[in-house]
């Protein structure tokens, strides 16, 4: 591969080689691989604790890490033996069903549960007194004194538990709720009007979750408009004056729901000494935390189990209303309670990606230098906040001045929650199309402009790969070049996400005398494959194939694991696991040394064999050596230590190219192909990383073209709360996806792992399709989803051959 030249700026970003001063006590200086093999790979010094395992070489020099062994739980999943929360059955278990608000905005006058209670088979009814989710009024005096105010249709009000699901369903219908209905608003534009019905009687703020999301606190609130949250760097006004070219456009994006295959839900079993909860969650720790706080229980008396999990995408942190209601019903009835949401409730009440209306203005010099970036956004997170979308505008490119104003607009709809790369698909849709518009105005190639304004050294390499790709080379730089009604176009978009580490990441590793090894952590596998990765880490340490390693996770009885959100799991947990494995291996060597007639420091465990440095004996297999342990088991527990180079703030990203065909008569966009070049530090398991990028691209395409939560403007109900009219890309809507990974070592931990969940194409797909659409038709499309009506409207309104170079 060709070698790119590192600019001084990149060199600064890559980090200068640390000075050779004497390391502080308890630490040592080691050299670590940093950079991109084939491009920028070099060695950098790091000061790390002496207790850390030896530096892990790059993937090509490893046996199991960086390879793609079979998914550890593949057989269980494809054979149906995997037990999801939905599948949990306990003796005497009751089934619970929510009673949901039948109106979008109301005070509840009274709730009569007597008829439901009398229905044979009903064992418990619970009326919700404290609702979780959504924004909370700053002034507690404004809160409803009786029942929680209804702020959206479908809001949970009460729940019933019965011996059979259909009895619970019938009983739920028998609960009589008397509403004092209030005016409501479900349209963002209308909600911004001064005379609009008020979703909250005063300022209200929402807490975030482990995966991001949740809006700013304490900002101005005017009517339903919560904000702006203003971020200013430099003088944007001056920046626009200094600009040779200014581009300003409006973009709008819809509400997307998470629509995980498995809905939210739990099975709760309240016993006097222990509350056990099986939960479909992205965070066993977060569920335990919320249940312990809600019921004033010691954490030691709450156990959360997630054996298998059917997807979350950011919406499944904490116990939520299903968790606390099921636990309450179990407590009341003394019986385990199963409570899983149906698809309608899933769409309505447990989160979504907020909408956005954005006005983005960018000024640039003739050479492309950005003089100012200004974004004003209004978005709705329903009766919650978190609709900000300035991430890409703030963090993708270098600018002289930045001015962003993010506003949340309350409407009478279910609260948003974090959703895979919160704010980014919206923000990138506007930003990346605006950058392309700017390139056109500057008469620059879109990649050349990005080379000029994007300082990230990894994306520079990614763009080079894109530039050299057959797909990009096939792009006609002249838009709207095809005659006839089918027009082909190629466009790209970039993405950025941030390195977050969850320090609540710990694991225990055990070595048994029979040579078996196991790892235990409360971390949950949300489908991305952390089980397999943990097996690989142990396999590398002990030289045992990954499929022979036992991985026990998804249970708070084990050492705490990170909540899986914000692309943190692998980056946070694998160093703790490797540290524990290393320490266990040292204990193991100490345990077998006497029987091998040598001292522990004479022994080395490598490639699945125990060697004597002084050649006291021929190397023996790990398994044979284990038989010589002086106890049945040795174990070590480790927790995450901070990144080696904390001051260094890393981001991950990618560059995606989409090829589309637009039928200008039917308005159908056919995405033909996507070539995605992404980085996630050291890919611990490339096939699983690619798998996540495939999923991110598909979710991004689905967002770009199909998905849309539609609320009836006159009555406030969602008209498509299913998976039929709420349209998600199906198998034949998915184009050829080609993913290439760029290994990028950053020298931050004992595994030097990073994350991929967010920067996986979900944020860039819509923008890449938008840019490809423009390349095909010469017309900008500024609204998602880009359905045939939207496309036909854009084509009919736009002047012929706009932006033509």
């Amino acid at each position, binding site marked *: 591969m060709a070698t790119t030249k590192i600019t001084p700026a990149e060199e600064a970003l890559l980090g200068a080689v640390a000075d050779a001063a004497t390391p502080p006590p308890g630490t040592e200086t080691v050299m670590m691989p940093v950079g991109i093999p084939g491009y920028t790979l070099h060695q950098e010094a790091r000061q790390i604790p002496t207790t850390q395992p030896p530096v892990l070489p790059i993937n090509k020099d490893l046996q199991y890490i960086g390879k793609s062994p079979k998914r550890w739980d593949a057989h269980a999943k494809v054979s149906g033996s995997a037990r999801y929360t939905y599948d949990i059955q306990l003796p005497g278990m009751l089934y619970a069903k929510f009673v949901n608000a*039948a109106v979008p905005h109301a005070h509840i006058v009274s709730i009569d549960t007597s008829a439901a209670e009398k229905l044979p088979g009903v064992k418990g009814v619970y009326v919700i007194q404290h609702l979780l989710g959504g924004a909370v009024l700053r002034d507690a005096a404004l809160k409803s004194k009786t029942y929680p105010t209804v702020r959206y*249709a479908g809001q949970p009000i009460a729940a019933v538990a019965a011996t059979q699901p*259909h009895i619970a*369903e019938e009983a739920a219908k028998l609960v009589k709720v008397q509403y004092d209905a209030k005016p409501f608003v479900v349209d963002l534009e209308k909600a911004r009007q001064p005379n609009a019905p008020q979703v909250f009687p005063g300022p209200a703020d929402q807490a975030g979750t482990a995966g991001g999301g949740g809006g700013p606190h304490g900002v101005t609130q005017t009517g339903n408009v919560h904000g702006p949250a203003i971020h200013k760097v430099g003088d944007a006004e001056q920046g626009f004056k200094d600009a040779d070219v200014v581009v300003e456009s409006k973009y709008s994006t819809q509400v997307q729901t998470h629509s995980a295959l498995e809905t939210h839900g739990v099975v709760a079993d309240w016993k006097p000494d222990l509350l056990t909860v099986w939960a479909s969650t992205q965070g066993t720790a977060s569920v335990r935390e919320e249940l312990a706080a809600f019921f004033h229980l010691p954490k030691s008396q709450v156990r959360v189990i997630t054996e298998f999990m059917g997807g979350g995408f950011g919406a499944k942190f904490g116990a939520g209303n299903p968790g606390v209601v099921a636990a309450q019903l179990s407590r009341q009835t003394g019986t385990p309670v199963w409570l899983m949401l149906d698809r309608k409730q899933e769409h309505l009440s447990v989160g979504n990606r907020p909408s956005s209306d954005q006005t983005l203005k960018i000024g640039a010099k003739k050479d492309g230098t950005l003089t100012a970036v200004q974004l004003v956004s209004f978005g709705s997170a329903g009766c919650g906040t978190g609709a900000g979308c300035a991430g890409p505008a703030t963090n993708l490119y270098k600018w002289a001045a930045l001015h962003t104003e993010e506003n949340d607009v309350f409407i009478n709809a279910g609260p948003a929650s974090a959703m895979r790369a919160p704010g980014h698909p919206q923000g990138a849709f506007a930003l990346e199309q605006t950058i392309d518009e700017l390139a056109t105005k500057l008469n620059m190639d879109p990649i050349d402009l990005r080379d000029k304004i994007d300082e990230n050294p990894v994306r520079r390499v990614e763009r080079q790969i894109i530039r050299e790709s057959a797909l990009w080379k096939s792009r006609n730089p002249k838009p709207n070049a095809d005659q006839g009604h*089918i027009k082909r176009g190629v466009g790209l978009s970039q993405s950025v996400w941030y390195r977050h580490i969850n320090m609540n990441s710990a694991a225990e590793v055990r070595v048994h005398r029979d040579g078996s090894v196991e790892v235990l952590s409360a971390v949950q596998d949300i489908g991305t494959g952390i089980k397999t990765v943990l097996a690989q880490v142990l396999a590398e340490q002990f030289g045992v194939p990954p499929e022979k390693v036992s991985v026990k996770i998804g249970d708070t009885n084990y050492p705490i694991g990170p909540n899986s959100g914000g692309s943190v799991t692998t980056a946070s947990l694998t160093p703790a696991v490797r540290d524990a494995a290393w320490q266990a291996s040292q204990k193991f060597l100490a345990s077998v040394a006497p029987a091998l007639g040598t001292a522990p420091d004479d022994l080395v465990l490598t490639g699945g064999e125990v060697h004597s440095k002084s050649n006291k004996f021929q190397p023996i297999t790990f398994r044979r050596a284990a038989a010589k342990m002086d106890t049945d088991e040795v174990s070590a527990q480790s927790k995450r230590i901070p990144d080696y180079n904390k001051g260094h703030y890393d981001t991950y990203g990618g560059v995606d190219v989409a090829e589309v*065909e637009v*039928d200008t*008569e*039917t*308005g*159908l966009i*056919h995405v033909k192909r996507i070539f995605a070049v992404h980085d996630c530090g050291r890919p611990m398991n490339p096939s699983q990383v690619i798998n996540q990028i495939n999923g991110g691209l598909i979710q991004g395409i689905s967002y770009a*073209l*199909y998905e849309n939560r*539609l609320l*009836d*403007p*006159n*009555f406030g*109900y969602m*008209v*498509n*709360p299913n998976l*039929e*009219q709420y*349209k998600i*890309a*199906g*198998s*034949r*809507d998915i184009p050829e996806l080609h993913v290439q990974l760029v290994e990028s070592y950053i020298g931050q931990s004992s595994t030097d792992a990073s994350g991929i969940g967010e920067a996986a194409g979900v944020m860039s797909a819509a923008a890449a399709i938008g840019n490809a659409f423009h390349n095909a038709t010469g017309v900008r499309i500024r609204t998602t989803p880009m*359905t*045939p*009506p939207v496309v*036909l*409207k854009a084509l009919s309104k736009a002047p012929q051959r706009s932006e033509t170079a």
Partner: protein
Amino acid sequence: MNQFILADCTTESGALSQLHDGAVVKAGGVDLLDLMKSGIATPTKLVNIRNISGMRGIHETAQGLNIGALTTLAEIEEDPAVKAHYAILSDACGHAATPQIRNMATVGGNLLQQNRCWYFRSDDFACLKKGKDMCFAFDGLNQYHAIFDNTTCPSVAPSSAAVALLGLNASVELTSAKGKRTVAIKDFYVHPDVNPMTRTVIAPDELLTAVVIPKPASGTRSAYQKYGEKRSYDWATADAGVVLEMDGNICRKAAIVMGAASPVVMRSPKAEAMLAGKPITEETARAAGKAAMEGAQPLSMNGYKVQLFPVAIYRTILLAAGQMGRDPSAVG
């Protein structure tokens, strides 16, 4: 789901004897179970006819085709006789829903399924079609609704098979304990202006037992294409069925059918007139497509359909005439 009595029948006469006291017939159950799950259909008695063996199969007769009502869409799609002489029907059945649904859905059930309208299909809205006095679509979200005959209830005819069968002048055989009668597809559906709650003329004691298709005239060519938003599993926003009786390149007679345009599947005599006696060219095909939109009355959000149908029609005419391949922009 409400509670009901299940009468599992294995013979036609057995099923007929059960058709009283509000009994609802279940074949593949594709549409019915959806309606029951969302509380729209609440039958007290279900008569399962799925396992009646005599009602399934495709028979070629001197007069044409006789298709048992329990024949699945997948079986019709793959039948060699249907493929050879009734391409429109093979296309229509082969592009409905998903492969899994086509394996389960019967042609009888497909013809009898309820119209598409998210207000009707939601238990949040008590609408005209459920016996109440209001339609929510006119002032609400109506992007998928009807552009013709839409002044009472703008829900749309859902069946792609019906598009093909109307174009083929097919009939359905209705059987009761008293005997059989045959009703042409064109007379089978009840317009909402007459009664928004009644979909078809089938009586409560009748079973739809077969579909009867006359033999096409010589020189007949036909095709069906569906247009929508997604390729996998989407309802048509516009589907077009075309049957051409050709003399060389001159079209003797044409049937042009539109699905998802109106509450009852409809032919367009104006479009047909543009082709009769003329050669099929892109120009005549486009003129037919344009003529089909005469009298269209789009609602607030479905104006694009007036743009889409002419395209669907002209391309399907050209496909039927063998002048264009299957449209890559068609879905399903």
